[in-house]
């Protein structure tokens, strides 16, 4: 199984050293805190793997009763065009609501076969994820979905139930959140895999601010 890369927080140790003053007792807590983050990321990778399994199976069950997605359902085709990426990028810049025939298929998936799924169907899949799938798991829908129609999606949840009990203190909350958010990342990756979008890279951001500790976003990059 391919594991999606997990990058909840860029350079956690850097941000910490900027915040704390250089004092002997503080160095100790800096190291401890950095070690805690590293340990959290390691366990997060496992949790993400578990989430993948669960997400895949859950999505399978949920999608059973649904009609096939979109007009351009995934079909195995060898991609005759030599350089699809610039073409796809150009097409993406034009109005994405053009007819499906106007959008060249976006190649994704592993190297062993070329499965193509057009942007509209991708969007349908992600919307299914945001609505039905998310509701099954979290009893609410994703609050905000953004996409650039070129395989990048940002899913924002402003009130993720699992994060609600985090302590208001920033650092320990961040460490806890890394572990907790790994599971939904895996869920998303698994669900997408089940729907035909293999090889997606899912990362997450913990968007806690003073108001809400439970706010987070998930970034999906489909190749």
């Amino acid at each position: 199984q391919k594991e999606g890369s997990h990058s909840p927080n860029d350079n956690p140790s850097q941000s910490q050293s900027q915040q704390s003053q250089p004092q002997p007792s503080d160095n100790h807590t800096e190291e401890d805190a950095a070690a805690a983050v590293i340990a959290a990321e390691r366990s997060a990778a496992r949790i993400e793997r578990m989430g993948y399994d669960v997400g895949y199976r859950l999505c399978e069950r949920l999608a059973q009763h649904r009609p096939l997605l979109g007009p351009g359902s995934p079909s195995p085709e060898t991609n005759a065009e030599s350089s699809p990426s610039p073409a796809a990028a150009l097409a993406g810049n034009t109005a994405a609501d053009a007819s499906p025939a106007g959008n060249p298929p976006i190649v994704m998936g592993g190297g062993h076969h070329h499965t193509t799924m057009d942007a509209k169907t991708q969007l349908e899949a992600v919307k299914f994820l945001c609505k039905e799938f998310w509701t099954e798991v979290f009893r609410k829908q994703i609050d905000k979905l953004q996409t650039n129609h070129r395989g990048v999606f940002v899913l924002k949840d402003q009130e993720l139930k699992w994060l609600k009990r985090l302590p208001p203190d920033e650092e320990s909350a961040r460490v806890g959140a890394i572990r907790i958010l790994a599971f939904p990342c895996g869920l998303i990756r698994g669900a997408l895999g089940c729907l035909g979008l293999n090889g997606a890279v899912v990362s997450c951001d913990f968007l806690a601010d003073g108001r809400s500790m439970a706010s987070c976003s998930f970034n999906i990059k489909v190749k």
Partner: protein
Amino acid sequence: MSSKSQAAQAGQALWAKMPKANAELFALTYGSLVTELVRDYEDPIEVNAQLDRIGHSIGVRCVDEFLSKADVAGMGLTTQCQNLRDTAEVVAKMGFKMFLGIQAEVGAFSQDQRCFSIYLQDNPLSTFVELPEDDPSGGEDLRRLKYSNLYCGVIRGALEQVNLKVDCNIVRDTLKGDELNEIRVELKEVLADGAGDDYKEE
């Protein structure tokens, strides 16, 4: 006996007020946890021990929640359990009901009243689960896995917090072909009030 139906009714009331989660998500998540443990430890006996350990820390938290919710609802449980039989009823009819929504039965009390069994007809943890067939290359091993051993840890952890030290074992398992699930609980000792235990790090 009136205490029996009281417990059942109270259990129903507690369950009604609990926030609910998707049962399939629950079963699948537990399944991937067990898979992960099997992958790590390989030896099913070790996996059983880990599940018991995890269950223990869950049980410790469950009992807190249970006691606070039962109290608030005016059920005044802390004064009601006079003996192990009452405790057994509460665990089965209220505890299992409240957290899992299932009706568990108690029975098979031993002569000295220190052992009892909890029977579960349905096991929410084992939805979709099949243990692998006997297999000469070592699949036989997984038959020694106690898939739902988490329950044993939960009961052990919960009762420990109310000063009852117990041993729990799964003696019958629908995953292994039995017609119901049976957990045997044996009282080892009644602990003196240990204030020091509160400060012990997990």
